[in-house]
């Protein structure tokens, strides 16, 4: 975005509540000046960065008081040196290397204030006003959410991904549904209050039945009756049938460049689809089979900071529970009825899919691998 447009304030802003305030109430700076340097002396470009202590707090106290507890604020499940999931894989002797990587690389990815969602594009993407400094209550999916959530969510939800196995469409909630991210990922959830380390542990995380009630009409669909209730012989996560292919990444390593700036590199990524066994059944994840995505961690992720930092790659699966944003009623798992899945080895995570992984990673994924692909069914059952 051109710098002049990024900083251009629209006339409409001055008709809003925030536009009636002196610029300096939020930003400091100098009232009149001949040069940009003088005008911006003491200026605070991101006045909402400190949440509860920010200029937003006096009016939006309830939100600013809790926002620091959210994963958007600190990505602790990914980057905290005490609670990051990857610590389970760390070699005690290599903990320093892991913590350096978490601090210098992973922890650089979080929102930089209320403004990242309510006035500008995320600073992670160099910012820039979305509506000429006019504040908006609901973040815009394309400009705000997908500014950061690009590799998986944007590609899946808007149909930008490509699979060698099938033609992909946008998620039906996006097109033609036109649903913004905030319709499921509610403000109440996004603004925090509950404390958890991983997004799937969030009590307010959206669930399909929030909208798609499991009523008589739902149960009238034969496949739902067979696979969508706890009594089902094989109880399936909704996405097992209704997600299209989604992005999987491998071998991410993090480092600093010659200017000591953080970057990452992943070896490969690609759209595919895999059903795995539910290795972590809980009340909120009660299914027998789930959709699994390969996560990019590998034993060399933190090599830049110290070799052999992740020696416990058998501690957790690297094919993990996923909730792809690529939903369609008809997918390659449904279009041919039962035979779409039964006897179709390609859509299950099998030993074949672990080829090339280290023995530790193979071991870690044993609870996920489907050893016996469901057998074929008779045509009469398929009808």
């Amino acid at each position, binding site marked *: 975005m051109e*710098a*002049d*447009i990024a*900083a*251009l*304030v*629209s*006339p409409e802003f*001055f008709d809003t509540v925030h536009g009636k305030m002196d*610029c*300096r109430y939020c*930003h400091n*700076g100098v*009232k*009149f*000046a*001949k*040069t*940009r*340097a003088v*005008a911006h002396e003491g200026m605070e470009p991101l006045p909402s960065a400190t949440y509860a202590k920010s200029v937003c707090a006096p009016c939006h106290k309830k939100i600013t008081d809790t926002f620091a507890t959210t994963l958007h604020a600190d990505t602790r499940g990914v980057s905290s040196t005490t609670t990051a999931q990857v610590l389970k894989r760390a070699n005690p002797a290599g903990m320093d290397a892991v913590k350096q990587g978490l601090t210098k690389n992973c922890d650089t990815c979080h929102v930089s204030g209320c403004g990242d969602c309510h006035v500008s594009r995320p600073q992670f993407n*160099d910012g820039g006003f979305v509506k000429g*400094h006019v504040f908006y209550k609901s973040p815009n999916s394309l400009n705000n959410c997908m500014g950061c959530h690009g*590799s*998986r969510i944007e590609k899946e939800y808007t149909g930008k991904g490509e699979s060698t196995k099938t033609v992909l469409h946008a998620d039906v909630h996006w097109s033609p549904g036109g649903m913004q991210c905030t319709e499921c990922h509610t403000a109440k959830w996004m603004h925090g209050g509950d404390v958890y380390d991983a997004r799937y542990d969030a009590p307010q995380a959206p669930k399909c039945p929030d909208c798609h009630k499991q009523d008589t009409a739902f149960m009238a669909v034969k496949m739902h009756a067979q696979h969508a209730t706890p009594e089902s012989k094989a109880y399936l996560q909704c996405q097992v049938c209704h997600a299209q292919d989604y*992005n999987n*990444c491998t071998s*991410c390593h993090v480092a*600093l*460049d010659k*200017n000591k*700036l*953080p*970057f*990452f*590199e*992943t*070896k*490969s*990524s690609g759209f595919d689809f895999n059903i795995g066994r539910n290795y972590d059944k809980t009340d909120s994840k009660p299914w027998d089979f789930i959709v699994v995505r390969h996560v*990019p961690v590998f034993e060399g992720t933190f090599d830049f900071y110290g070799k052999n930092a992740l020696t416990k790659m058998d501690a957790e699966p690297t094919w993990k529970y996923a909730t792809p944003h690529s939903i369609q009623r008809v997918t390659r798992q449904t279009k041919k009825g039962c035979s779409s899945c039964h006897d179709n080895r390609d859509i299950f995570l099998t030993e074949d899919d672990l080829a090339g992984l280290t023995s530790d990673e193979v071991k870690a994924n044993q609870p996920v691998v489907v050893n016996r692909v469901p057998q074929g069914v008779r045509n009469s059952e398929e009808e």
Partner: protein
Amino acid sequence: MTNKILLRRLALVGLLAAAALAAVVMSGCSVEPVVADEGEYSCIQCHTDRELLKADLKADPQPVKAKAVSAGEG
């Protein structure tokens, strides 16, 4: 006697005036110009005028934000 009372009252008035002046100065009102001097701009003047912003940025380009280049998808 009368002079003493008068002096006290004058001192009190002076004290109050000084306090009021201090309050005004501390609030910034007294030192802040209301109208821009020749060649000066306010925040709004500059940030609502795209041509002005462009000219300013052309004359004095913003420093490029140093950023490492990542590869692949994360």
